[in-house]
């Protein structure tokens, strides 16, 4: 019996203008945008590759260890085509040094293209689904019950010995089948375009991630269909149902996300906690500075000159860069000379001793400051943004966006994976320098006995987190979507059971 119902509903839906329109518009938008998005990704990849090459070259030209500033780049995520998330917005170039522990707030944008073009809006595939699919789902649902009630066919159907639950289920299944056609077909086209582009190499895991996105899209679609069905169940006339459905759509998709973000106070004044942590970090470095000066005062070399009077072709500088907003404060110094006059030969051992003391001390202080900073950054910057994300999830749009970002790995956690890898790499670089005994060597600041050989420096590589991690991050939101589905279905069922026809 239920198959007959499904068959009837399916035919009813498939032969309509709205089905054709839905199919056409989704295909058109997805294909047109995928082409553009792929092109954009290729551009970003190209500039990433160029930047990696430049940085690779730059480090090899550095003559002393002290001058060797390692820069690493963040590769663009190919799944940003589906949901761009934070992939394009956060910095993609970061400087690694023993003086401080890097975070995503120190990353810069590599200045390769026209930054003014950012004022033009851009979209991704998930956004298209967010707007179009939800609209389609509501348009398929608004007259499902109200329409039959108006035409009187609902009464006719119910005169047969059919359970009301079966009618609902048949309507739900057939409409979802119809709605899946534009969704899956357009995704298929997008996938074909993706896989035929040679510059994009998708791993096996990526297909699973895309599968996760599809699954989430279906859950999202179903939420909006059920919202439409609910409206249809409580209204008597299709006109009213349509009007209400449109209002709900506008409110959930357009108004709510914008309204809630605008309503939350976004202050740029550092909170008291941030200020006190910043002062603590400063104190840690002040302590370091005192010890440093103490060392200079008590070592064999007279005076407190950190350059030990050494001079020549090259430079020396030291300062404390700071950024109170992101709680950044550290000691930064560089001393590097190409040629050294023979008259400085007596001072060189003093300098070597100094650096043997200074660099490990700097590293230790950087670790201490980082422990303070890490917690405070979590408490101020990250918590606030996570609160905004949570509030966004009051609308299914927010859940869908969060879940697909997690699948694609373009969410905050996914981007932070990269910076965790960067921090690990910093440790590797320090260990490497330590193993070369670089801090105490003459080559730390002078290249007169030959330049540093950088060829054995371990290279940086970053692999996106595995599919299990993506799944773990996406699952809460996906489950939330499914729960909303279930709840809505139960409410509709109860209303429909009790309603008079």
């Amino acid at each position, binding site marked *: 019996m239920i198959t007959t119902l499904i068959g009837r509903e399916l035919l009813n839906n498939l032969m309509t203008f709205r089905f054709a329109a839905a199919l056409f518009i989704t295909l058109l938008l997805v294909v047109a945008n995928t082409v553009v998005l792929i092109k954009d990704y290729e551009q970003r990849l190209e500039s990433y590759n160029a930047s990696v090459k430049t940085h690779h070259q730059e480090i090899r030209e550095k003559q002393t260890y002290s001058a060797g500033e390692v820069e690493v780049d963040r590769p663009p995520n190919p799944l940003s085509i589906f949901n761009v998330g934070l992939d394009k917005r956060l910095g993609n170039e970061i400087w690694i040094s023993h003086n401080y522990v890097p975070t995503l707030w120190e990353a810069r*944008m590599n200045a390769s293209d*026209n930054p003014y073009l950012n004022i*033009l809006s851009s*979209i991704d595939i998930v956004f298209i689904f967010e707007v179009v699919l939800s609209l389609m789902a509501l348009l398929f649902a608004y007259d499902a019950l109200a329409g039959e009630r108006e035409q009187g066919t609902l009464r006719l159907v119910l005169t047969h010995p059919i359970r009301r639950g079966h009618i609902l289920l048949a309507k739900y299944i057939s409409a979802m089948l119809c709605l899946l056609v534009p969704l899956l077909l357009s995704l298929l086209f997008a996938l074909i375009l993706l896989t035929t582009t040679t510059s994009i190499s998708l791993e096996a895991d990526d297909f699973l991630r895309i599968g996760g996105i599809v699954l989430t899209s279906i859950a999202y679609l179903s939420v909006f269909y059920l919202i439409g069905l609910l409206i249809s169940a409580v209204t008597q006339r299709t006109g009213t149902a349509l009007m209400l459905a449109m209002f709900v759509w506008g409110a959930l998709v357009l108004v709510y996300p914008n309204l809630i973000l605008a*309503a939350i106070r976004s202050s740029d004044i550092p909170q008291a906690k941030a200020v006190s942590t910043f002062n603590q970090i400063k104190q840690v470095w002040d302590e370091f500075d005192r010890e440093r000066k103490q060392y200079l005062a008590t070592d064999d070399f007279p005076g407190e000159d950190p350059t030990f009077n050494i001079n020549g072709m090259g430079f020396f500088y030291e300062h404390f860069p700071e950024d109170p907003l992101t709680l950044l404060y550290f000691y930064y110094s560089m001393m590097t000379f190409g040629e050294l006059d023979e008259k400085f030969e007596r001072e060189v051992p003093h300098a070597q001793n100094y650096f043997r003391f200074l660099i490990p001390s700097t590293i230790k202080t950087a670790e201490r400051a980082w422990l303070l900073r890490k917690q405070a950054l979590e408490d101020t910057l990250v918590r606030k943004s996570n609160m905004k994300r949570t509030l966004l999830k009051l609308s299914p749009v927010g859940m869908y966006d969060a879940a697909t970002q997690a699948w694609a790995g373009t969410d905050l956690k996914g981007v932070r994976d990269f910076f965790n890898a960067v921090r690990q790499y910093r440790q590797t670089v320090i260990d490497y320098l330590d193993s070369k005994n670089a801090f105490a060597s003459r080559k730390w600041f002078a290249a007169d006995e030959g330049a540093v050989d950088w060829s054995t420096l371990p290279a940086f590589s970053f692999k996106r987190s595995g599919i299990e991690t993506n799944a773990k991050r996406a699952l809460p939101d996906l489950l939330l979507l499914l729960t909303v589905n279930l709840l809505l279905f139960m409410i509709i069922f109860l209303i429909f059971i009790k309603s008079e026809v």
Partner: protein
Amino acid sequence: MWHITKREIYDNLNSLRFALTTVLLLALMVTNAVKHLREHPKRVQRYQDAVTESLNHLTDRANDSLYTLAQYGPGNFYKKPSPLHFCANGGEFLLPDAVEVDEPPVFMTDSEGNRLLEGIWSLSYPDANLHNKDVGPNVSQVDWAFIIGSILSLIALWFTFDAFSGEREQGTLRLMLANSIPRHTVLIGKFLGALLSISIPFALAVLVNLLLISTADTVYLTTEAWGRLGIIFALALLYTSLFVALGLLVSARVQQSAVSLMILLLMWVTLVVFMPSTLASIASSFSPAMSFDEFWKQRNPIKEDLWDKYKEGLWSSELDDSKLRAKSEFYTENAEREERWQEEQLKYRTSQVHRARAITSISPATLLQHLIESFAGTGFERHLQFAENVQRYTRQLREFVADTDRADPESLHILGVREGMSKKLVNPAAVPKFEDTLNLSKDFNTTAMELLLLTLFVLVLLSGAYLAFVRVEV
């Protein structure tokens, strides 16, 4: 005709959609006002602090000597925040808010650190304010441009999708046409009725919004700002009538109101949501951005060429005027070239943005966005105007320095070199100050094209609706 209009308005006033619309618009407009009141004073404070600082730089340098002023120039220039920021945010957070004054370069020093060869200040245009410190969800704005562009247009379709098809379904259309009313009167009546019924909740929301903003003592609106607000309100009505006409057109041709709404919604999604972004992406990928390295490569030959040109004059051993003159010329030309290079980069990028914006102008939503931006004094065009203001001022300042120097008979009139310039004190009050201004008539000129295009869209759609309705069978 007035009878039909009145009937339409009464019909709408009692409907559910009218109530929902009022609630929606009020919520949006109140949020907008509250946000503006919260953020605008901070923005103004930041601007004033920055301006005071650069003014202090200017005064200090003028107090020091004419030479210091000529060499170090004024402090950085800052873009004045528009009091109408709540109308259109215009991607301001992505645009730089300053034009910087670069410190004079030092090419050579002797062993004691005395500068043997240096330069003079020049302008540089910093890259966009990249907000990569914020890790929150993507920023979205509830400004008037969004409320009018997306929400009001949707509401317009919501009010008109069943204008004819609904009456046709109920049979009242036949009844009405059976009376001796010409069809165009019916059409105009319906048009005015829908437009007025949308204007009522919109005007109400705008009034509440402006009441909140103008009564707060932290924000002050000038008479000119009120004039601009009036223009923006008129633009909103023009834009709404476009969508009303579109709704009437589709409604007249389609038999069922459900189908009519579906078509309209799909059109809306394409016109308002997708066309602006997709076309912009396509347009910007047509002409790939020139990379920073390429610009840098273009710059280097200019520099080397300059060295060759002045090599002899700079290294001549005689200590006379000709060496000073060579230095002065070298400094000036170096700064000029630096500035020209910066300007070219800005121009290149600007032309790219302009091209993309021109293509997206096919969508009325983008047209409206641009129009509101230029009347609110925000956005890209405003940024260019600011850069132009800065350029004009720097010319003025350089002329002032030259004139002051010329007025001193004891000076050698060799600018940029300490020995060659006037030693007299400069009165800091006499130095021209930078003022970032907005010009309404200029805004009208730059937007005339877009205004015409939008009006054209409305007229085309209205006549389309007329033709459709006149020829349709009832």
